[in-house]
């Protein structure tokens, strides 16, 4: 997996590329949490535009970041979600708690 982060004006954008499954999830969640601790952003944008595959392991990662942002008093936005990951998120009902936007 590839992870790119940019931090501007209290907004941390985390872009994730590759396949997010159980094999990758632990390491990815750890890296993102490190970025959150280092930057303490007001808003976090998780950009999934280059994600090629995601299963339920990704749901747990998103919920983990969501809870961390809540604890920081900030917000999480999951954006640019391609259709396969979107179907997984739809099936999970996670869109009732987290802001999720599909890829245009």
């Amino acid at each position, binding site marked *: 997996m590839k992870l790119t982060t940019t931090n501007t004006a209290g907004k941390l954008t985390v872009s994730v590329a590759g396949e997010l499954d159980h094999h990758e*999830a632990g390491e990815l969640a750890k890296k993102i949490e490190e970025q959150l601790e280092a930057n303490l952003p007001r808003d976090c944008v998780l950009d999934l535009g280059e994600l090629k595959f995601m*299963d339920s392991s990704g749901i747990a990662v998103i919920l983990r970041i969501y809870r961390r942002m809540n604890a920081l008093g900030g917000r999480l936005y999951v954006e640019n979600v391609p*259709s396969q990951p979107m179907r997984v998120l739809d099936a999970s009902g996670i869109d009732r708690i987290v802001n999720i936007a599909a890829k245009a």
Partner: protein
Amino acid sequence: MKEQNYMKLEFPSRSVNEGFSRAAVAAFAAQLDMTLTEMGDLKTAVSEAVTNCAVHAYPDSIGPVWVRVRILDADTVEVQVKDRGRGIQDVARAREPMFTTGGEERSGMGFTIMESFTDSLKVRSRPGQGTTVTMRKRVGKRVTGR
């Protein structure tokens, strides 16, 4: 239903094999005329079943995982994922959305996803003996707007 073709895989429950196994199943199933969405659904369902072997069946060790794929009739793919791991005490409860024994790292949505992304899901398990998950999915362009 008539079996047209099949393939079998065996591999250890190492997480690196999750990506391999879903790609292998998809490559084999590609002999059926499938939409991109159907292919994505199949890969996701396989990934859920194989991940459960790595995470739950053999929690503190590495054990064998068997995957069998069958093409049935002209339009149905059947995937069976089998382990000889810990087994499931209460299958009905395990299949409920959000039920997990995996703590923070899991969401308890695996069986729910397998069920909604395929046409049928059968789970057979004996505690201490192992678990067999069998999924069937009918594919091809149909007028359902999926």
